[in-house]
Structures are given as C-alpha cells and as structure tokens.
C-alpha cells in the first residue's frame, strides 16, 4: 500500500494494514529467546532480563529452554571449538523464522581469547548472524539496543521480491552443516558458503609489516 495514502488514512482515524505488516508486527513483538548462555556475557544477558533492565517489556521474557520453541539465539559468550558443533546444532533445531544475536566480542571474533588453540574466531563462520553487539561484556542496555535493532530489522523485511528473508526462499538453507572434531582443529574450520571476508580486509593493502616475515614454509 502506498505509504502516503496510509498516513493520510491514519490521520483520519483509519488504520490500514497489510498481511505483511501484521506478520512482521507479530514476529517482532514476540521474539522468544533460547535459554542459552555460554560465558561471561550470559550473566549480563540474565541481568538484562532481571528487574532493573527487564527485557520482558518487549515481550521477550519467555526464555524457552527448548530450541524447538525459540525464535532467537543470543550467542552470549565465547564459542569454543568444542562447543561450536553444539551451537550449530541448536541453531539447526530451531524452527524458522529464527534470528541470531552475537553478543560480545568473543561471539563476534573470539575477542580477547582469539589467539589460541581452542576458541572459535567468530560464530558467523558457521551460522548467519543478524545483529552483532560489541562489548566485553556488553552492558544490558547494549543488549536491549541489539534487541530493538533486531525488531527494526524484522519490521523492515519485505515478504516478497528478491529481498525477502531467508526462511521464505527455497534456494537458501535453514540448516547449516555441523563441523566435526578433527585431530588438530574443527573440520571444516569455516562454512565457506556462509562466511565471506569483507573486501576491505582482503584488499592487498599491506599490513604494517615491521619485519620481513617469511613465516613458516
């Protein structure tokens, strides 16, 4: 419906809505998160649901412990390589439409623990992330902000046309391959169909090389 017309109608006390808007309105106002905490950020996530910050105001206090009944996965904390397969599996078990908030530096990129053998360098290597929220850990206000950002994102989704969301397309998967434990690392170390390095980072602009790093062979 024409936006202008709608505004005029609403000024005259007539609220016109479309199926698309109703659907998006319902989805965005009833986002039930999965009870799923990984590390430090989980405590801040709990604090967000508690009395002072009260995520329930947005209709999101129904933390469902079973992934089958959840809409949103808040990856709150460090995803280790041992945990990554389970995170992907949980994501696969959630019904569409489903959303992911990567909460905190660790979930985004490994954060302070990125150098090392056992921490996954970002959960978006395996599952698609809707909202990234930086911080170590992010404050509850930041999580609420991420939540509102997600709501806005849902609200803006068109249900037809090329830009329609993943769960309405036939050519996009709703499940993603689960990595397996290897002898030295996870196999595979990333999901190449999902994870692309932004052009900025792959650009041949040299990193500030201090020494002539030949590296290992």
């Amino acid at each position, binding site marked *: 419906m024409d936006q202008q017309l709608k505004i005029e109608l609403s000024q005259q006390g007539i609220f016109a809505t479309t199926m698309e808007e109703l659907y998006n309105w319902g989805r965005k106002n009833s986002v039930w998160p999965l*009870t*799923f*905490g*990984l*590390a*430090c950020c*989980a*405590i*801040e996530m*709990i*604090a967000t649901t*508690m*009395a*002072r910050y009260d995520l329930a105001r947005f209709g999101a206090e129904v933390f469902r*412990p079973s*992934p089958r009944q959840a809409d949103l996965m808040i990856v709150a*904390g*460090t995803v*280790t390589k*041992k*945990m990554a*397969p*389970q995170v992907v*599996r*949980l994501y*696969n*078990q959630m*019904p*569409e439409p489903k959303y992911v908030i990567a909460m905190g530096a660790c979930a985004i990129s490994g954060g*302070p*623990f990125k*150098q*090392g*053998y*056992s*921490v996954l360098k970002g959960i978006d290597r395996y599952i698609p992330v809707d909202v990234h929220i930086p911080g*170590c*850990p992010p*404050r509850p206000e930041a999580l609420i902000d991420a939540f509102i950002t997600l709501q806005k994102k849902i609200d803006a989704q068109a249900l037809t046309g090329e830009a329609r969301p993943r*769960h*309405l*397309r*036939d050519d*996009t*998967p*709703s*499940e993603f391959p*689960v990595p397996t434990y290897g002898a030295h690392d996870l196999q595979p170390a990333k999901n190449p169909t999902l994870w692309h390095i932004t052009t900025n980072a792959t650009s041949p602009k040299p990193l500030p090389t201090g020494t002539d790093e030949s590296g290992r062979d």
Partner: protein
Amino acid sequence: MSTSMEASTPAAHQGFADATMIDHESDLLQISLGPHHPSTHGVFRMDVVLDGERVVKLKPVFGYLHRNHEKIAESTTYLASIPYTDRLDYMCSLSNNWAYALSVEKLAGLQVPERAEYIRVIAAELTRLQNHASTIGFLMQEMGASGTPLMYAFREREKILDLFEALTGSRMMCNYMRFGGCRVDLPAGWLDQARKTVDEYPRFLDEFESLLASNEILLARTQGVGVLPPKLAIQGGVTGPILRASGVNYDIRKVDRYGIYERFDFKVPLGEHGDVYDRYMIRMLEMRESLKILDQALHQITPGPIIDPKAKIRGFRPKPGEAYGRIESPKGELGFYLISDGTPNPYRYRVRPPSLINLTVLEDMCLGSSLADTVVIFGTIDIVLGEVDR
C-alpha cells in the same frame, strides 16, 4: 522454506540431549544434561545414567568453555593477564584480581600500602556478597521458583555492581588491582555510597530469609539431600562454603591471614550435616559475616597511597623463581602458581580453580538421589564455567 523436518537427523540431536536413542535392552536410561541445559550454569555437561529417576552413574564432561587462558597468559606480560583473570570466574572478578596480584607480589616480593589493602578487602567482600546472593537465587531457580528469588538477588547485585562501576569503570570486568596496590583511588563519595549499600543489605537478607528459610517445600527439597561427609570433602580437595557446610573449619582468610584480615573481627560459620540446606545456610551466614568485615573496613580506612611507588607496572620482570599464592574466593581456594624465568612473560601460569576441584565430589553426592536433586546439588556447588574450563 526448506523444511528441517527431513534434515533433522538423529545426529542433529546429540549435542542437545543425546536423547533420540532409547536403549530398549536395559531399563537404564542414559541422558546427557548439557552442554545446553537451563540449569548447568553455562556449558557444563553431565552424562547421567538413570534408573527410573534415580541416578546410578554421573560423569561430568568439561571443556566446552576452555578458552586457553593459561596459554595466552604465558605469551603475554604479567600485567596484561589481569583482564583475563576477570574473565575466569566472571561473577567475582575482583577476587580473581586479588589472587593474581597476591601471587605476583609473592613472586616479586612487593609490599602493598595499607589503604590499598583496605580497598582490596572491601572489594573482595562486596564481591562475596553479590556472588552468594546470586548463587542462592540460581539455586532457587533450579528448584523451580520461577525466577522470583533470583530477581530479588539480582536487584541487590545491581546495587553492588553500581559500586564496582563507580570504582573501576566496569560492572563486571573490573581489571582493578595492580601488583603492589590498586589502579585508582576511591572516587569522591564512594565510601558513603558503599556504607549506605552495606547498611541496607541486612534488610534484604532478612527479607530473603523470612521468605525462604521456613518454606516447607524448600526444607523438604534441601535437608538430607546431597550429603557430603567431611572426610570425603577433604579428600576431594573441596574448599569454600561447601567444605565449611560439611563442618571442616578451614577458611583461608583465617588460616593464611593474607592481606589485613587479622584486623577484622569475624567468625566462620560451620555446618553439621553437609547437605544442600547447610550449604545454602552457610552462604547466608557468610554474607552476614562479610557485612561485619565491610562495616569495620569502611570505617577504619584512612587516606594514604594506594600503590607502592617502587612497584614497576611496565617492564615488570620478576627474578627467576616460582610462587603459589591463594585467597579465599567466594567459591573456595583460588590460587595462582607462577614461574618466572626473568623475562617479561611468566614461564608458567597456572590457575588453581576452586570450581573445577569442587566438582570432584559431584558424583559421590548425586549417586542414588533423583534427577531433580542432582540439579539442586549441582546448584549448591556454585561453579562458574569460565573458571572450571579456563
């Protein structure tokens, strides 16, 4: 929309529950609690074999939050490890700071000014208050009290976090203590605010206790459940409130007299039965003792330097040698074992995690009790996965 109906293979359930396969041959049911489970405090996993609802075997599985903390600390400087210690037991970052600073001070032979010692005691006891309150809240949550006690506990926790934020700039990850002192001095008005919070705290405790302590369902769920005999507790290396709930008088604040704890008048509450109720009550009583210490410390503290001027913060290179320092963290004995080889990085950096070692006796406490009790017993051990797996 692609249906996940077809694609959801049995393997897809493994991480969640290992739950699709039911063994028809035996009457025993093997289930896996975790790593994603509402009451495992994060990503802990217990492989439980059930006979009906009775636990006949329980094996903890760790490592889902192994963040190679020790490896990182060995490849960085002494100072740069302090933020990492915050993230060990992320409920009580200030206690972790203190334990690490204490160990480094032992390693390098540094002295701490008096004011800094007072600030450390105040910070550590505030940490203990909020940790114990949240632990009890989580315990009630595990008993199925739909969040109300947890909400009340977190309401008080937020007040203490406000103090931390005013002092250190961060709610949870304080990164506050330094070798030979503390990072910054108390901001103006902080002491008054802290005194106010401390004075109001007993009201919350009274309210909490009157709501919980004589609730018959709570008594029935906790008394005589998960009994830990004192011999087994010592043998299993259990420390902290769990050990004292079993009746063993061992509080490192009294034994080692680290910091300035000998100046304060406080007692160590001891349990007799070593069951879940005792562990819950000991935490309640310890909070009251912490309030006593806080009350004394907040009134005795005097102005002065907060860090030893001789202590080198940058380019810190202790002499070769080793040291093991430990404190009584809210969870038990938190120790750091450091070896210096004279370089800016520690050669070996080891955390003695109380949470991990307290789990040694988990199976003994749970065997023969029901699944519901297992969750409650596990809740009273009070673990934080960041510390268990590091």
